């Protein structure tokens, strides 16, 4: 099975699966912390509307994990607080 990198670990994914889907399948529930309270966030709506599941992918922050299709070369990281402009 193909994998992508998440916080230095390999996460397996199926062809066409989103980053959020693969992370949840791997047992991971959250991949962002809120700007003020530092509380954990993961998927809420799961359809690209709520912007709760933001993640940093290939150095670009504020990507929606629920819409981002996983690829072999992808490097994603937990997003702490607001993204980088």
């Amino acid at each position, binding site marked *: 099975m193909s994998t992508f990198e998440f916080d230095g670990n390999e996460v397996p994914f199926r062809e066409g699966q989103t980053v959020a889907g693969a992370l949840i399948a791997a047992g991971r529930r959250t991949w962002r912390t809120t700007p*003020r309270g530092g509380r954990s966030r993961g998927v809420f709506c799961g359809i690209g*509307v709520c*912007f709760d599941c*933001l993640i940093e992918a290939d150095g670009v922050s*504020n990507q929606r994990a629920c819409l981002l299709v996983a690829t072999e070369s992808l490097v994603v990281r937990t997003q702490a*607080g*607001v*993204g*980088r402009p």
Partner: protein
Amino acid sequence: MSSVTRVVVVGAGIIGASCAYYAARSGLDVTVIDRGGVAGGTTGAGEGNLLVSDKGPGPELELALRSLDLWVELGAELGTASFELEHKGGLVVASSDAAMTALQEFAATQHDAGVACENVSPRELAELEPWIAEDVAGGVLYPADAQVQPGLAAARLLEAAVALGADLRLGEECVALRTAGGSVQAVITRSGVIETGFVVNAGGPWAGALADLWDLPLPIHPRRGFVLVTEPLPPVIRHKVYSADYVANVTSGSEELETSTVVEGTPSGTVLIGASRERVGFSDEWDPGVVQRLAERAVALFPPLARVGLMRTYHGFRPYCPDHLPVVGLDSRMQGVLHASGHEGAGIVLAPATGELVTQLITDEQPAGYAGALSPDRLTLVAS
């Protein structure tokens, strides 16, 4: 007859919440009703601007200056963090030398009326706002301008009013007034009757419809505006920044679409982009043309925004009054009826002083000096 005067406030937006808070604080027996929820209309669809910078000398500016003092007091009483009160200052920018001259002349009249402001050179602008476009001709900084999260502010004021004994009834719609001998007797709702000597129309853009229902017509109309919300960013836009043509748009009576550029960050990191004005009734139709225009103009003012994604847009309806003044005061056509609406896009900043004035009029205290100019009986309103 109870010895405590009862007041029913219709509307749980920022105006109704302020009226309830100040009335409860002065010992009145307050009931707030709203057909929906707290801040479910205009208040929840705003940006939370507390601006003196966009107001020329006159009664609205006096109301705003008084209100800003009260906002500072409210922050101390209720906790600034509980409604995200930020004294960030406003920065009005001009795109040309001619616009800069006009802006400076306007600012001079405001300065004479007690508004703190200072001219800012393009070089200083770049220090105040690192993302701002290089071709901006200059600006004026207004340190008193501030910002709140309006939904939280309304909720916090209502919470404080309830703690003082007010009764808050949501999902309760006013369907009629019971009157006798030219005086209010009771507010009739879908679920019952609330006996009262005073009723406050705090219906925002629906205040005109409510006044019609009470057979006391009032020329309040909705004026729609869109707000764009970006993805969350670190604090890159530090002030409330807007283009000088915003003031001209606010004071215009045109029914046509008008846009100016208003940009500010929020504590959660999102950047809010406005402002459009159009008279299209209560239309909920999403308009990509308006959204595109607002986005283009924001990028022209802050070029790095071109790389920033939009999360969503929302729209709301400002309570527009043809003579561009709020309508606050007793209705001489019916004893016990007060109106508190017509604040257009300035309802958040003007709310505390509006609540204070309404309370002064009910308790028969000496009202503030601007009371006459804001009265529902004023000639400019009767003629419109």
